[in-house]
C-alpha cells in the first residue's frame, strides 16, 4: 500500500491552490467579456409603411423590432414581406425591380418573390411575413 508522500502532498496542494487562484482570476474576466443579454419585448407585428408610400414594383426596408424586414409592392398591386437578412452571411437584401428579384449585394445571392433561393450562396430561403392592410397602414406580422 502506497502512502501519499509529503512531497506529493505539497505538490498537489500547491498546484490545486494555484489552479484555484487562476480560476478565481479568470472566471470573472471571461464572464465580463461575454456581454449580458438585454431583454427585448417579442414584437409580432409592425406598421411597415403607409398605403401609397411605395410605388408599384418597388421595395422598402422597415424595422421589425431590432431586425430589418423588406416590404415589396408587386406590379399587380399586392404586397409581400420577408426578413431582410440574407441567410448567407447576414447582409441586408434589397428589391431589384430590373430583375424582379430580391438581391443581396454582398455575395450576389438571389431570391424570388416567394423568398426561395434562385442562385448564389444563400443556403436557406428568406422567412416570409404576413401582410395586411388596416385602414391606412400596411401591417406586417410574423407567421404563426
Amino acid at each position, binding site marked *: 500500500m502506497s502512502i501519499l508522500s509529503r512531497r506529493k502532498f505539497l505538490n498537489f496542494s500547491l498546484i490545486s491552490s494555484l489552479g484555484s487562484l487562476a480560476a478565481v482570476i479568470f472566471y470573472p474576466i471571461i464572464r465580463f467579456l461575454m*456581454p449580458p443579454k438585454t431583454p427585448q419585448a417579442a414584437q409580432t407585428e409592425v406598421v411597415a409603411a403607409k398605403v401609397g408610400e411605395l410605388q408599384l414594383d418597388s421595395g422598402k426596408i422597415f424595422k421589425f423590432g431590432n431586425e430589418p424586414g423588406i416590404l415589396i409592392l408587386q406590379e399587380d398591386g399586392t404586397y409581400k414581406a420577408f426578413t431582410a437578412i440574407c441567410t448567407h452571411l447576414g447582409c441586408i437584401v434589397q428589391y431589384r425591380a430590373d430583375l424582379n428579384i430580391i438581391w443581396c449585394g454582398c455575395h450576389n445571392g438571389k431570391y424570388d418573390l416567394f423568398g426561395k433561393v434562385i442562385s448564389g450562396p444563400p443556403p436557406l430561403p428568406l422567412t416570409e411575413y404576413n401582410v395586411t392592410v388596416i385602414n391606412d397602414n400596411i401591417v406586417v406580422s410574423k407567421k404563426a
Partner: protein
Amino acid sequence: MKLSDWFFDRYAVQSWIDFFRKKYVPVHKHSIWYYTGGFCLFLFMVQVVTGILLLLYYRPTAEAAFESVQFIMTKVRFGWLIRSIHSWSANLLIGALFIHMFAKFFLKSYRKPRELTWVSGMLLFLIFLGFGFSGYLLPWNELAYTATKVGTEMTNLVPFVGKYLLVFLRGGEQVSGATLTRFFGFHVAVLPIIVTVILAFHLLVIQIQGMSVPIKLEEHKSKLKQLPFFPDFMLHDMLGWLVAFGVLAALAALFPWELGTKADPFIPTPIGIHPEWYFVFTYQTLKLVPSRIFFIEGEVLVVFGLAVGIIFWLLVPFLDRKSNQGIPAKFFTIVGIIIVIYIIVTTIMGYVIPA
C-alpha cells in the same frame, strides 16, 4: 567626465554595442529581400505615431465616431493628412507584410534553426490583419459596417464555439455601438500589447541568429561578401524608409482617404460592395463556392479551408523536412506559387466581375 562615460559606468550596455558592431549581413543576389522586414517595421512605426495622434480626437461610439472622423478631416489642422497617412500606411503595411512573408517563404528562410522566427512572423501577420479588420470599422461608415457584419458572421460558422465567438466579437447578437467600442479596445489596447511582445521576440531572435542565406548558398556562406549591420545595412534600410515616407506622403496628399457615408443598420447592402483588398480573395471565394457541396454548407467549407490553410502555413517549417536537411523542396515552392496565383486571380476577379 563625459555623460556617456557616466552612463556606461553604471549600465553594462557596452557588450550590446560591441554585438551590433560585429554583426554582418551577407551580400548575394537575393540580399534585397533582407530589407522587406525593416520596411514593415517602418510602416508599423508610422501607424503607431499617426494612430496616437488620431486618438486625441476620435470618439468610439456609434453616435459620435463618424462625426469625430469627419471633424478630424475637415476641422482639425492637417487632420485629413494624418488620417490619410494612417489609412495609406495601414494598407501599404499589409502589402509589405505579404511581400516579406512570401519572400521568406520562397527563400525557405523558415528552415532550421529559424522555425520560431517564421511562427512569430506569421502570428504578427495574423494580428496585423486583425488590426486592419478592427480599424476598418472605426470610422463607422456604410462599407465598414457591412464588412464587419460579414466578417464577424463568418465566426458563427466555427463548430461548437461559433456563437460565443460571434457574441464576444460583436459585444451582442448584432453589429452595433457595442461592437464599435470593442473593436476600438482591440485596436488601440489589446492588439498593440500582443504585437509588442511578439515583435520584440521576432526581432530578438533575428538579432541572435543573424540573416538566413538561401539553401544553395549555405555551403559557401563563409565566402560571401559581408556588409556591416551598423552603420552600412542600417543606412541602406533608412534610405528605403525615406523613399517610403515620400511615397506615403504623396499618396496621402494626392489621394486622401475617403470617409464614405455614415453606417445605417437599416439600409440595404450597397451595390458593388467589397472588403479591403487583402480580404477580397476570401470574399470572392465565398461568392464562387455554391451554397451546398454534398451535405456541407458552402461557407462552412470556405471557413474550414481557410483555417486548414492558415495552420498549414504556420507549421511549414516543421512540415518541410527537405529544406531542414539543406535540400531544395520543390513541392513547397509549387504550393507557394499556387497560393500566390490563387490570391492574385481571385482578388482581380473580386474587382473586375460585376455583382
